[in-house]
């Protein structure tokens, strides 16, 4: 390794030797700084002629030691003098004023403004979608079938296993817990009503929505976001391809179309799980369960469930595309928007679910 930086005071002169570079300084920075500090060396002549290398980090260190002025008496080679001159020409860096921390009112204000901004952009995206749909009706040859099909496959077909697994387990769990209670009242047969109504009307759609928001919503945001980071979106526009028709619309249409099917699938599997559990716990045979299901659960519940699926699917894709388009070209923004996209989608889904519950409160409840 290189000779380390050395500082000696010889007969009233400060003599530096060795390598004055960052790499050589770092291992013994404390000692060197201690030697330089304290104004002990102020006013002495400096001899840098036996310094083998002097880089800008060391030059800055020396310049600071000299209180930003040239020492009265300095011996230094021409080459190293240039390194020192470069450090000297830098104006003493102004301390960066810390930005004043804003109070809670200001922060709340910004939050509301951001909310309004998002709302505005969401409405614009919705309007753009309607315009695009109108355009596609007039020009059916431009319908992006391939993209729609690809999205249906990615968001729909690929989601079948996980929705089935989660649905089955939830069905088993609810059936098992309800059975424990119902047996106490001797009301075993009502397991069919409980499972039928809760899964078909409520749990199926919400469960699938949460899964799809986490699975496909985040993927959509990240995909559009990376396309923005890498300027692919701009490249599309430059080729005269509408980004909203080619990128946004297929996602919206595909997820809206595929969600009711996923809800149907997940609800069916959840009911199967419930049936298995009911058979094991209460000894209710499959045939009895299926026969009673038709009686206990009016078909309106299925319509409500599928309708929710349709709306939830649209909301998830809408929110995902919105936040994807808001990604700024840096990694931090990409991760923040993906998180916001999933959180917003799930929150909105639950909010809309509550609205559904109120608006459909007189529908599909069996009269006993």
């Amino acid at each position: 390794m290189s000779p380390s930086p050395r500082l000696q005071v010889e007969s009233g002169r400060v003599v530096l030797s060795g390598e004055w570079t960052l790499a050589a300084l770092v291992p013994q920075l404390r000692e060197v700084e201690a030697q330089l500090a304290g104004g002990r060396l102020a006013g002495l002549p400096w001899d840098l002629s036996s310094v083998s290398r002097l880089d800008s980090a060391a030059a800055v260190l020396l310049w600071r030691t000299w209180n930003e002025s040239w020492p009265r008496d300095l011996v230094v080679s021409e080459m190293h003098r240039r390194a020192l001159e470069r450090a000297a020409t830098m104006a003493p860096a102004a301390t960066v004023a810390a930005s004043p921390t804003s109070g809670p009112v200001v922060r709340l204000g910004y939050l509301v403004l951001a909310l309004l901004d998002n709302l505005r952009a969401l409405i614009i995206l919705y309007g753009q979608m309607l315009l695009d749909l109108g355009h596609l009706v007039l020009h059916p040859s431009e319908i992006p079938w391939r993209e729609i099909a690809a999205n249906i496959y990615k968001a729909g077909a690929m989601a079948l296993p996980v929705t089935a697994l989660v649905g089955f387990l939830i069905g088993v769990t609810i059936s098992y817990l309800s059975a424990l209670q119902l047996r106490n009242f001797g009301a075993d047969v009502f397991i069919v009503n409980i499972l039928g109504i809760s899964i078909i009307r409520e749990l199926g759609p919400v469960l699938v929505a949460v899964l799809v928001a986490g699975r496909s919503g985040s993927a959509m945001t990240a995909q559009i976001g990376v396309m923005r980071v890498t300027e692919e979106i701009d490249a599309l526009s430059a080729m005269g391809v509408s980004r909203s028709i080619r990128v946004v619309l297929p996602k919206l249409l595909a997820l809206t179309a595929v969600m009711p099917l996923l809800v149907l699938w997940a609800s069916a599997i959840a009911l199967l799980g419930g049936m298995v559990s009911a058979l094991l716990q209460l000894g209710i045979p499959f045939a009895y369960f299926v026969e009673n299901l038709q009686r206990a659960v009016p078909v309106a519940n299925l319509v409500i469930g599928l309708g929710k699926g349709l709306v939830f699917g649209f909301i998830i894709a809408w929110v995902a595309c919105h936040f994807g388009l808001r990604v700024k070209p840096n990694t931090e923004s990409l991760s923040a928007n993906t998180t916001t996209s999933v959180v917003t989608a799930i929150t909105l889904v639950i909010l809309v679910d509550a609205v559904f519950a109120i608006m459909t409160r007189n529908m599909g409840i069996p009269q006993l």
Partner: protein
Amino acid sequence: MNGATSAVVEMRGLSTLIGDRYVHRDLDLRVMAGQIVGLIGGSGSGKTTLLRQILGLLRPAAGSVNLFGEDLAVAHPVAQRAMLRRLGMLFQGGALFSALPVFDNIAFPLRELKCLDDDWIRRLVHLKLAMVELEPGHGKLMPAELSGGMVKRVALARALALEPELLLLDEPTAGLDPDRSRSFADLLRELQRELGLTVIMVTHDLDTLARLATHVAVLAEQRIVEFGPLADVMAGDHPLVAAFRGGGQTKVL
């Protein structure tokens, strides 16, 4: 410093396998301290891959890469880090941290040392910015707000932040206007004189090559087919060199 005769980078019998395709096969290259080596070769001939081998981002399928006299692949992780601190890399696309402003990008490697105070770091960052002809005010910009040429210059400033002994440059002047390319070459030349910097650069820019390089390595057919002082190689009759020489630029070497 053990003299100007030590090899900074030495590759012996190096083979690189990506997928099932050989990018390099039995490649030899020895770069001595203080040399400025221009690495030229056709598009896709594995120039960037060779730089990645030096950085230890790829493992050789065969042969070895010695950096500062030690094999990076078998070195202890602590020694590896110490070795990597002695080199600076300018990536082709800049590879700036997109979430950090320019100032923090350049300050990042300095802060990683964990022993410099804020004032020192600030001065050094401003010094590096000045070296690449940027102003302190540019430090607040985010990488996404920079032009292509500015990205290059910030990336160079970051590569220079730790005062490296070895500088790896991937297309350093692509995207710079001729004036800037020239001042870039002058800056590197000066740094090289002052600090004994060793530089390996991939370039397509004949002007920069002529201005800066002391040696030229020609990468073709998965190995270094020519290596030697600039004038010797450029006077040679390898088809690639001839094509490079005649490549539209009228510079007479």
